[in-house]
């Protein structure tokens, strides 16, 4: 997969292990990626890219915000420009947690844990729609997710499938076809956890 696709850079790796990483970011609120967004990080000296899913977003406070928080009121005209600055312009300190689902080397995608976590201070980028479509073309990306015990996996699976389904809607296949294929994969993988499977499938329905 090409890493040259022009997408949003969200920050630098703060800490990482083989199952995922945390990104320190200072980006305006509208650019903060949402729960279930695919991101990529360079690994192995940039020869490969780890693919992961955002599963937690923590907005950090700082002395600046603490100072404002005690006095700023949304309806007070004294703070109109200040509140807009904080929301729309100011770099909000954010920690974004990502769970690894696979990695790419050239045009090939491998699902599962990467050979190496991303190194500290490497730049992380949001995947383009085309990249997300290619990653989710096979349901195998769900396997490393379902094995993960750190992230809210079931909600993440639902969210990522709901976002991926429209990307696979073509003249010959529908959104429902994609979800049906993914549900069959989940049914096989979670055969021994029927209650968990039912919870996920109900949310997908």
């Amino acid at each position, binding site marked *: 997969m090409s890493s040259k696709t022009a997408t949003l850079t969200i920050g630098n790796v703060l800490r990482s292990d083989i199952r995922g990483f945390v990104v320190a970011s200072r980006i305006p609120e509208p650019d903060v990626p949402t729960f279930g967004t695919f991101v990529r990080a360079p690994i192995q000296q940039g020869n490969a890219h780890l693919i992961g899913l955002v599963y937690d977003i923590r907005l950090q406070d700082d002395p600046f915000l603490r100072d404002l928080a005690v006095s700023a009121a949304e309806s007070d005209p004294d703070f109109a420009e200040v509140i*807009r600055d904080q929301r729309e*312009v*100011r770099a909000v300190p954010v920690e974004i947690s990502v769970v690894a689902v696979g990695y790419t080397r050239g045009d090939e995608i491998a699902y599962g844990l990467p050979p190496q976590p991303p190194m500290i201070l490497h730049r992380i980028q949001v995947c383009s729609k085309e990249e997300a479509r290619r990653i989710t073309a096979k349901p195998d990306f769900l396997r490393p997710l379902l094995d993960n015990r750190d992230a809210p996996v079931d909600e993440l699976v639902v969210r990522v499938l709901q976002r991926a389904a429209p990307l696979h809607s073509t003249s010959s296949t529908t959104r429902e076809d994609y979800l049906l294929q993914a549900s069959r994969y989940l049914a096989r993988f979670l055969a021994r956890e029927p209650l968990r499977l039912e919870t996920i499938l109900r949310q997908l329905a």
Partner: protein
Amino acid sequence: MSAPGYNGAMLRLERLRQDIQELSRRVIERQRRNAAELKTIRRWFDAAPAAHVIREQVTSAQRTDRVAQPVTDAPVGAQFTSNPSPPPNTVVIGVDGSQIPPDHHATVLYYVLQVGGLIFHYNGEAPFPHTETRLYFEEADLYDAEGLLITTQLGMRRTVAELEFLADLVESERRRTPDTPILALTDGPLLWPYRPGDEANRSRDAYLAVFDRLQAAGGILAGFVERPGGRYVVEMARVSQAAGDMASAYDGIEAPGHLDDQALMAEMLAPGARSPWFARLSETNDIQARRGHEIRFCYLNVGETGYPVVARIDAPSWVVEDAGTISLLHAALQHQTRVLHGNPYVLARAHELALVTSQDKALLESVLHRALMEQGIVARPSEKARQKAYLSRRR
């Protein structure tokens, strides 16, 4: 926390206990003396002659550079209020700067200047942030005329760069809004702060040339000095008590030993109020005056009832001479400091935009290292720098 067996140095607070107690005792003692001196100085203010008389007294006093001279005819103890906010559509621009100084122990020798600014419109819209970063690496940038690595020169260059950036922003804003008042705010004094010397004089000339640009663009230039040092107004009050031959009479009046202007103004100014404008008769201010940019100052209480926060406001004479401009400046500073409890919002944001963090520096070092590696050059920081980086991780 140190690792087991780690024997590195750290701050041993228990060994400082006696010193901490002594320091606390001194602070309490200083406050007690301040209170006593305050009574004396308040009495001097009550008995002070008219401002024009004090102006003459200061001119003939010794060490005039340490004495504030009233520049208007308002009573020296007067205080002035303003509207709580400036008129709609007023623009306030704040700038600040930061740097990575040249370091012999770094991967390669360079320095970085980064300036940040925020353009704040009073129109309900979000402000506009701006940042400019420059990397300097030429020998002529890094070494002085004697071949020594620059030190204080970096501060001078940063001071000029900040003001140039401010002028750029004011000029671009002026092109957009020809008739709008534009307040141009810096974080710190406006009087050129460096001792004369070849580079200092060149930088000062460049600095004052930017004043010309700001004046031409119709910018309302002001410097915001939080926690100002100095005892200029206290000294003026002392001078005002002299009679007859000023110089000799002045010497006969005991100088308050502890109270400074900040403590005096915290007592004298109501929240939101400012003092009259003063000037310092220093050599540097004379030079600035000859270029048309004499600096004047007043004190402003940007705190709240029971919690005074005194700032010094520096402004060139061409700002201070217009009553409407002063009112606008006063009102804008009131609002800017009110939203952030004593610190102007635009300056706090400009500082944030300009700040080069240790993480930024590490990233730049890493990129430089990689760029050199790609060219087949193995460069790395000194062993001392590597050790320091290791030790700093304990923090």
